[in-house]
């Protein structure tokens, strides 16, 4: 699929924003200023952005516990995200949700999720809404390799097929669920599993934005035009450990350094667009500077953003009661 210059610039900006956001959150967490459980998406940017570049505000995604990248790729406000991580009342979820529950339904972002396998059934519902209300919308569930073993995920494959839903399941296989390798925990092959449920399935290199974008475009177009659900198996890597605080000793010696050096979707994207003269080096460098400034401002604002007050505990349990 041919991408315009503006689309390429957006793709790079979104991926660079995710990377910078995560690298900074890592530092902030280590400094002890961020509360809660934080799972970082660095290394996996091409997946979120490659998929979400094919979606509009009328389309819906469900994310996982590793949700910051999906949020940014779906257009959530970066400053409000950072404020949420800091537990501010000015955050995207007013400090109620935090990293694991970050969401913005106005952007079609149905939430990060603290429950592994929580997203796929919800995405069947979002796809059903689109189908019944004839919005032309598509719904996409991001699922980890670990989450692919949850009954909810496999039931959703079947439901999406028999209801002929405009849904796409994106298995982000980063090789691990916590400390357990996907090569051990996943029985059978992801593509064959999907095909067993009648879902067309494709494996893509998650370090390559163009590969993801292409395959996701095909799946999403199919869903949008009434062709039903399908699955992408995106093979990629996470740079950080499972959560901030996990020592990651189950990884091989030098594994992360090697990944950063050899399997970096951002470096690969830069090289490709600059070498083929699709974008100028200065354009890409400018984005890097702008992104760095955005993240710096986000953190500065988040640090001093208003905290919730005790009375806020009681709000928003119900609309009326």
């Amino acid at each position: 699929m041919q991408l315009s210059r503006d689309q390429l610039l957006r793709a790079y900006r979104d991926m660079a924003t995710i990377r910078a956001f995560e690298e900074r959150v890592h530092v902030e967490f280590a400094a002890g200023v961020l509360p809660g459980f934080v799972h970082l998406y660095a290394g996996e940017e091409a997946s979120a952005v490659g998929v979400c570049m094919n979606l509009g505000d009328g389309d819906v995604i469900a994310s996982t516990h590793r949700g910051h990248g999906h949020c940014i790729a779906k257009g959530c406000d970066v400053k409000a995200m950072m404020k949420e991580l800091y537990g501010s009342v000015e955050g995207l979820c007013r400090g109620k949700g935090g990293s694991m529950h970050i969401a913005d339904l106005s952007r079609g972002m149905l939430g990060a999720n603290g429950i592994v396998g929580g997203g796929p059934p919800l995405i069947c519902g979002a796809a059903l809404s689109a189908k019944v209300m004839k919005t032309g919308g598509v719904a996409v569930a991001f699922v980890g390799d670990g989450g692919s073993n949850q009954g909810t995920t496999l039931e959703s494959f079947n439901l999406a097929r028999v209801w002929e839903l405009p849904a796409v399941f994106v298995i982000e296989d980063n090789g691990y669920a916590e400390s357990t390798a996907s090569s051990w925990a996943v029985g059978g092959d992801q593509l064959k599993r999907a095909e067993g449920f009648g879902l067309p399935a494709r494996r893509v290199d998650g370090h390559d934005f163009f590969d993801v974008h292409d395959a996701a475009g095909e799946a999403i177009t199919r869903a949008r035009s009434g062709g039903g659900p399908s699955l992408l198996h995106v093979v990629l890597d996470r740079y950080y450990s499972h959560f901030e605080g996990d020592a990651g000793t189950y990884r091989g010696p030098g594994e992360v350094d090697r990944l950063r050096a050899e399997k970096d979707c951002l470096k690969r994207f830069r090289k490709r667009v600059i070498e083929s003269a699709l974008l100028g080096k200065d354009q890409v460098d400018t984005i890097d500077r702008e992104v760095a400034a955005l993240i710096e401002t986000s953190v500065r604002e988040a640090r001093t953003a208003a905290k919730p007050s005790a009375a806020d505990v009681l709000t928003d349990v119900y609309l009326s009661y």
Partner: protein
Amino acid sequence: MSRKTYRQAVSEALRHEMRRDLRVVIMGEDVSGGLGAPGEQDAWGGPQGVTKGLMPEFGRGRVLDTPISESAFIGAAAGAAATGLRPVAELMFVDFMGVCFDQIFNQAAKFRYMFGGRAVTPLVIRTQYGAGLRAASQHSQSLYPIFTHIPGLKVVLPSSAYEAKGLLIQAIRDDDPVVFFEHKALYDDEEEVPDEAYTIPFGEANLTREGSDATIVAFGRMVKFANQVADSLEQDGIGCTVIDPRTTSPLDSDAILDSVAETGRLVVVDEASPRCNMATDIAALVAEHAFGALKAPVRMITPPHTPVPFAPELEDAYIPSPARIEEAVRGVLAAKR
């Protein structure tokens, strides 16, 4: 005897029982960890490191890592329990009961009754619960009343390291399905714990403080808060009995009723959501059986009827605090009837 953390106490209980009885197996996500990975094996030992070191001693045949498929492996533990093993399954956070509850409450809990007394299900489900770690709405709940509601399940809430070791050994030796609730904010708490195996019977409350002015019944982590309050009130010459029921099912009703008969004043502290929780259960028990002894309305100290919030300011306001407990005790003492 030596000082041990709650984490070590749980771990020791598992080790004792695995050494003693070959039928005891443990299973759960990353209970050992590193399976299929290039680096360290036994890399995790569960999210709290509780089960670390068991796989090297007992092997992967008895320390079973699982895929993220709670419905399948919790159900497998129930099925294995009914057919000869004595599994200890780890449900990482009790909030995840949502994906596997059928196997617990429709299957394991009911085998014995449905099958006319011709089944035993010596299953233990260990699980983390409770607020305090900024883990937000889906990793902080205190869902033990839901399990307490189900006939056929036993429900245990160890309030300290000593309690954790004795109650877990008891749970593993018990022939009924037991849900064992470990409070995630207690793992680093330390106290003297015997090195050898010992059991603490179910349904026998522990009186952690004794006094004749008021009764405080508290569960899990709330026992620690209640003890603090009792110690502080003692400085003012107010004597409280603090009752740790240890198990919500079976419940030591006698210990509670006897104490209320003496003090006439009751405060119940429960970290679970306020509707249909242990506090309402105990208030009803006392209203039914000790109404005449009450010199003041029962006070229930619980969180509000809301999910657990993320931001520290919100979560701190959510959790029952020693200050609120103390205010309630002073309140029941001041009440005139």
